[in-house]
């Protein structure tokens, strides 16, 4: 009853092209943003802000980046963590060596560096596809990590290879509380998500999807293969690079190359599989799911331990967590390959009909 579109007519193409064509959606999103920007910083405690919400946003951004490359453009990549590492370490170097730039321009430049790396390692995509390409991106993952570890310049010749992100300062205002870090991350992620959504519903997005669905046909109708694929790598790596910079500056604080291993790449891949490939919303849903699941499991096992008097060790819990991750991947791939985003769409369809069954 509530979620009806009756009476909402679109009389121009512009109205039809909106991101949220249904008025109730627009209201819901506005409400959500208001809560995220205003209510949450006031109400949430430090743990939630710095250990859950901020990393969720950062991973959502990285997942968004990977989704652009793998979900929309169909180029499977296992090098996400490497691009994040480039973003993190380049941001550090820009802030360190050119402090007059400012944080936001440094982040942007770091993203562009990541984009450049992405283009280089995306070149093989012009000749190879599918999981062969995935193996090529593994080369990127291992090589970039080795380069950062071996070449002292990246870590300012730190003997342990660990760098400490400088405090974030924009226009004289210091971002050093959990609230301010959260808001900074939220702001950056929200803007980039909007840009991504705009991009994916324009010609670029269509070109990506065309290359994903049938690249020979795409080429025949005039879509340039090389430019499109490399652009996908560039934009995706940019997003991952900025996510990496945020990872260092608003979450970790002290960063080592080992924070960006293949394991992280897999995690982000899982986020988009579970959340929904080829969907901006899916990136957020998947990131939320993967970020919250360990906490949920810990609580669950903690409660089980208490109720049943069992002593379930932390190691067992983390192993079970691995198994559940893996199991969920298989489950989603089999049952709903388009992930949570599609389930959400189905729920909305049902909601439009509610309270009628069909």
């Amino acid at each position, binding site marked *: 009853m509530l979620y009806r579109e009756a009476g909402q007519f679109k009389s121009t193409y512009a109205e039809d092209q909106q991101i949220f064509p249904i008025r109730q959606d627009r209201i819901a999103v506005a409400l959500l943003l208001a809560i995220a920007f205003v209510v949450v910083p006031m109400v949430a405690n430090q743990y939630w802000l710095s250990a859950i919400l901020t990393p969720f946003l950062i991973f959502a951004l990285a997942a968004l980046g990977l989704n652009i490359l793998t979900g929309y453009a169909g180029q499977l990549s296992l090098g996400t963590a490497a691009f994040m590492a480039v973003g993190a370490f380049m941001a550090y170097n820009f802030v360190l060596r050119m402090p007059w730039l400012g944080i936001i321009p440094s982040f942007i430049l770091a993203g562009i560096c990541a984009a450049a790396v992405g283009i280089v390692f995306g070149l093989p995509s012009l000749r190879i596809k599918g999981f062969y390409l995935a193996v090529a991106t*593994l*080369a990127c993952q*291992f090589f970039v990590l080795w380069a950062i570890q071996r070449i002292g310049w990246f870590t300012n010749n730190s003997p342990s290879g660990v760098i400490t992100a400088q405090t974030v300062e924009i226009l004289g205002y210091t971002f050093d509380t959990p609230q301010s870090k959260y808001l900074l991350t939220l702001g950056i992620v929200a803007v980039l998500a909007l840009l991504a959504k705009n991009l994916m519903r324009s010609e670029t997005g269509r070109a990506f999807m065309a290359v994903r669905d049938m690249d020979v046909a795409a080429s025949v109708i005039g879509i340039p293969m090389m430019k499109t694929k490399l652009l996908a790598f560039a934009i995706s790596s940019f997003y991952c690079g900025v996510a990496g910079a945020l990872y260092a500056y608003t979450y970790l604080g002290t960063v080592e190359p080992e924070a960006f291993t293949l394991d992280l790449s897999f995690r982000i*891949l899982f986020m988009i599989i579970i959340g929904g490939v080829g969907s901006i919303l899916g990136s957020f849903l998947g990131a939320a799911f993967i970020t919250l699941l360990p906490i949920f499991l810990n609580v669950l096992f903690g409660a089980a331990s208490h109720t049943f008097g069992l002593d379930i060790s932390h190691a067992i819990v983390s192993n079970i967590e691995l198994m559940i991750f893996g*199991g969920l991947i298989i489950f989603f791939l089999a*049952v709903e*390959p388009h992930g949570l985003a599609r389930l959400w769409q189905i729920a909305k369809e049902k909601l439009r009909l509610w309270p009628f069954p069909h």
Partner: protein
Amino acid sequence: MTNLSFFFEVLIGGLLAGVMYSLVALGFVLIYKASGVFNFAQGAMVFLAALTFVSLLERGVNFWLALVITLAVMVVLGIAIEKVVLRPLVNQPPITLFMATIGLTFVLEGLSQAVWGSQPHGLDLGIADVPMQWLADSTGMFISQFDLFASGIAAVLVASLALFFHYTRIGRALRAVADDHQAALAVGIPLKNIWAIVWAVAGFVALVAGLMWGARNGVQFALTFIALKALPVLILGGFESILGAIVGGLIIGASEKLAEVYFGPMVGGGIESWFAYVIALLFLLVRPQGLFGEKIIDRV
């Protein structure tokens, strides 16, 4: 010791290490040949096999009995994987199946450690990892006894697999399925049974690989990463060729070792972490189907 014999020592050491990679790659090839699935979980299977075997040994189970039990576990695992993972995904594109095997990897890794614990174990097969004395004495080269033993095992394994595929009824059925599922069905070959058999055989291969690697490096979580090294081997050798897995392994093993020893010091070492992948990458650009694979043709 002269430069030349040092070179040969590194080369042979690399070749033998490569054989170890081939052992893992063999499992991939078997499954890919028969079901077209690229089983990313092969490394996890190697780990599970090694861990199960070692844990049984440590609990006092007799060596051969432990072997049999582990083999049974791998066979059951193969059948379970076919039922739970492959069948629900039967008509999906290969990339989906590949991602499902990534999920499977995590499941197996978690399962292995949940059941047997996560401490590293040592595994002693009775052959020490020491240089062969008479070889060192006569040529001045230090070649590990264990490496030679592993190569011998690998050779026996490959030979038996080759015989199995060519001369038995089941082997023929496997080759038919690898060629064309529909045609195999049309002549009455029971596809599901075949896949279960293939995964079981791959499990056996994983067990052998797990034993070799476990004895060499210890049975620990890092074993799962060996699977990743098998990927460049497969790219070089082609995904469907047993011979390719061997040749690819030899090439990767040798070039990796040589690069590390001769180029490594110039750039601070650690080349082994990425060199194999870069070689695979360059190879992909020139000959995507590998040395022995079949050319992939895209038709509109």
